[in-house]
């Protein structure tokens, strides 16, 4: 266990280091010029040259990288070149925003996954219809689903809000998770409002992963419900649903968990679109803005952050796999 933890921390460091190197290579290759992000559209060549020197962008890439790394190790994330505010400040509100959306999305994906996996085993029409609906929803491009949701629930019905995280301004709570903050401060109305803002974006983002999870889950359930131990369980009088709960899910959970780990890692990419459409001021939007502006500092920091999240999530997944399946040894 200790070895496992150490090796994971080691791997976190390696991944983050490699990431940071890659970022600099990429920012070189990417062809963007961060100076323009910094000085704005109408700047004169003098202003551009001055800014270039000031930002150290006239230095060789290696030197720039070294500077970045040393500052980073001192906990200084640098300045967002496009908004000219410290990246740390930019992240402080956006990270919780994305995490909140991501958490709800993951939960919803799992729910969709379970429902659909169940629909696979339903014989007859009902299962077929559920599958068709979910397949269609997962097949349509995310932005189309999101926009249709927007037109229907906001434009036509006016049931759900479609812009931002709340109608009442930023939460005063500590966590930055608005729903949680609302509950913690006893402001149920606020929590409810924040939840309403979450519904459409989370639904739009969770359909794809949900269906993917369902497929893998159904597949695993299929195998495990036909296995010898399932036969034993049946012979011991377990009902199909007990069988599913006690043996099926657990045995099928391995690949599902692996997939989930990867999906969470990649979730940001899918959240980009959703955040854009629902004006969700999170990392996804910020990343896109930063990439577009060639705001290398911000891009690098977000990437590192995501890298860290990814490694942590997958460490948890590996732990989960080991807990689920005793034959897997942690190494």
């Amino acid at each position, binding site marked *: 266990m200790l070895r496992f933890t150490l090796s994971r921390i080691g791997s976190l460091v390696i991944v983050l280091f490699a990431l940071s190197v890659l970022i600099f290579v990429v920012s070189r290759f990417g062809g963007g010029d961060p100076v323009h992000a910094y000085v704005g559209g109408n700047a004169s060549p003098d202003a551009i040259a001055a800014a270039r020197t000031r930002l150290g962008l006239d230095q060789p890439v290696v030197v720039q990288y070294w500077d970045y790394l040393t500052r980073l190790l001192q906990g200084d994330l640098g300045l967002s070149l496009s908004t000219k505010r410290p990246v740390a400040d930019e992240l402080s509100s956006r990270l919780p925003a994305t995490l909140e959306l991501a958490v709800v999305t993951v939960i919803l994906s799992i729910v969709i996954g379970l429902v659909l996996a169940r629909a696979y085993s339903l014989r007859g029409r009902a299962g077929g219809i559920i599958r068709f609906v979910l*397949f269609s929803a997962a097949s349509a491009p995310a932005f189309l689903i999101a926009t249709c949701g927007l037109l229907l629930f906001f434009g036509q019905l006016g049931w759900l809000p479609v812009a931002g995280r709340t109608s009442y301004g930023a939460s005063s709570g500590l966590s930055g998770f608005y729903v949680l903050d609302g509950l913690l401060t006893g402001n149920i109305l606020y929590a409810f409002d924040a939840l309403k803002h979450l519904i459409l974006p989370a639904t739009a983002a969770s359909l794809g992963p949900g269906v993917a999870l369902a497929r893998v889950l159904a597949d695993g359930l299929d195998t495990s419900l036909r296995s010898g131990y399932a036969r034993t369980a049946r012979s011991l009088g377990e009902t199909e649903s007990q069988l599913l709960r006690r043996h099926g899910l657990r045995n099928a959970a391995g690949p599902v968990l692996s997939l989930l780990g990867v999906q969470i890692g*990649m979730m940001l990419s899918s959240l980009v679109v959703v955040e854009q459409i629902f004006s969700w001021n999170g990392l996804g939007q910020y990343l896109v803005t930063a990439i577009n502006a060639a705001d290398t500092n911000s891009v690098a920091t977000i990437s590192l952050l995501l890298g860290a999240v*990814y490694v942590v999530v997958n460490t948890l997944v590996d732990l989960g796999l080991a807990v689920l399946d005793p034959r897997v040894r942690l190494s």
Partner: protein
Amino acid sequence: MPSSAETDASGPAATTSSSAGAPRARRKVTPETVALAALVIVVLLALLGPLLSPYATDVPSGTPYLAPFSGGHWLGTDNLGFDVLTRVLAGTRISLFAALVVTGGSALLGLLIGAVAGFVGGWVDSLLMRITDLFLAFPATIVAMAIVAALGPSLRSSMIGIAIVWWPLYARIARGEIRRAAGSLHVEAARMSGTHGARLMLRHTVPTVMPTVLVTASLDIGGVIMTLAALAFIGLGSPAPSPELGLMSSAGMQYLLDSWWIPVFPAVAVGLLSLIFNYLGDGLRSVLRARGA
């Protein structure tokens, strides 16, 4: 639980018929067969598209913003006056081809890398998985952008770029299951019987992950088309008049409220393609399952 194809096969078993012979599988129209038929039609349409339509894809053929079924344009015209139907047909071909190549390529690559990692274990596993983690941990768009920028913007480079960011998904999935399979008795037995290396891996471990990989891949088709679009959108794919479905739909989004047909038809084509592949993936899965059992 068995998917519908299998359910159908077990249908006769549940009824106590008097015949003692092998149960006759009743032929029934399943969603999978419908999907297969649909795919054939779509491919045909895409191939014949240029012959079917009187218009060109990159020359205005009518007034901009014509609604569907007006002025000889079944699906209307877009903001530049291009015929939407013609472009959707041509786009289907490009996108289908690109998505298949990218998905197939990255699934193959990922499967291979994941299998090697899971099968060989030890430092090879660590190395390969760290590389995989690196790619997964990195926001895909950034890597893809860098690769495309390095190769020079074009559809081909976007395809390569996306394949490179897409394979780790499969590698991750494959590695876990292969790892488990590699420890099982039948692999030890095969090793004892003299099968080693790549052959042992390919024959005795890889088939366990095939259903999962295929299913995942089939589900990814739509995603790949849209990712290609995202790259094209920021100038890294083929440039504008090229009729790519993803690009047409995402670029057309701004006209959604007033000229819905401009983004919606290409998006529906994307959705249709991935729906077809979803069902095909499902069908494939049950076929593989039935054969594996």
